[in-house]
């Protein structure tokens, strides 16, 4: 399945989780989510964990990139 990108940079709580959950509920099994803060990263990782994804975190400048697969 094609990697699906979610740009949640600069979005306030709970938008990053809402977008992540929409993607999970749509049945996507491979995701790339970009966020701007540690808080968003923690929240998205928790949502991914509940959705049974495994995730890796990398950084690109100020952006935090979460790559996840189910």
């Amino acid at each position, binding site marked *: 399945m094609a990697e*699906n990108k979610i740009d949640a940079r600069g979005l306030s*709580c*709970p*938008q990053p989780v809402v*977008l992540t959950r929409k993607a999970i509920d749509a049945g996507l099994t491979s995701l790339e989510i970009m966020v*701007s803060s540690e*808080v968003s990263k923690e*929240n998205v990782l928790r949502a991914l964990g509940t959705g049974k994804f495994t995730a890796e975190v990398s950084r690109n400048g100020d952006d935090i990139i979460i790559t996840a697969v189910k």
Partner: protein
Amino acid sequence: MKNIFSSKIGIIITGALIGIIAVLLQTAGNPPNMGICVACFERDIAGALGLHRAAVVQYLRPEIPAIVLGSFITSFIMKEYRPRAGSSTIIRFFLGVFAMIGALVFLGCPWRALLRLAGGDLNAITALLGLAAGVAIGVAFLNNGYSLGRSYSNRNASGWLFPAFMLALVLLNIFPVSFSEGGPVFHSETGPGSMHASVWASLGAGLLFGFLAQRSRFCTMGSIRDIILARDFHLISGVAALLVTAFIGNLVTGAFNPGFTNQPVAHSAHLWNFLGMLLAGLAFALAGGCPGRQLILSGEGDADAGVFVLGMIAGAAVSHNFSLAGKPDAVKEGVYAVGGIGPWGQAAVLAGILLCLVIGFTMREKLTVRP
């Protein structure tokens, strides 16, 4: 460095400590069932500055600035301080105004609702139900594409200006100045504004709240929202811990008094407790955080959260100047009179709910995931 406070154990410890410290603040002089109340204390600050002239609620509460400064120092050290701004700022200001109007109908923010419940004030149940209803409406909007848009990194002054303003308020408390005959800074001689812990106790407690809540991401509105939105019980475990320790603390200090009537700084007008907190809950959900969380975010450099807090302070002034705030129950000539709000307050609550619904419906983006 892993953030231990954002774990399950961490948020439970945070909630437990907030509950204990709040009860300690009550024994140290803060009003009963009001060890910490972000709405009431911002209202007291508005009064001290002369933005309203309700004489019984005027005091430059150090807890509020200390929470912001605690968050500022913590986030700076932990490299989470990030000046940012630009997410529908004017909307956030008015959400703050109406969140405060709603909270002052009930006479408490969600933190105080929990403390009132822990003190036996059953009116808090009505309020928490209203809060949950408001949050649920907010969740419906969130699930339908509601967004205030992203914020953008900003340069430094945008981040430290609000904490600096808060520091100025602390200094104004410690070094009182009279700016004019009969003018600010005001300090209540009777009523809740006259009941407060020592400046140093308030500052210390606030700094600790700021540190704990920043690290743990504690948020009372979020705790309800996350259950509805994602069946996520992480934040609510911290809230539950607060309730438990505050309840035990009140039992130990003899401050537990169960019932709907004769509750301190409270009224038992059930419909308006419910609707006032529904308005507050909806506004907090649309703005992304409970009032405590907004203080924490503003300390981290989030200027939009800072504007929300300024909106709450302005809302407190509006609330008292325009007779919108709740009046406590009282005994008049031997008869128990239920307090509550008058017609202006009722109109303001309904107008506020309508405004929030308009914001919820009109600030929508299509929710798509780009393949």
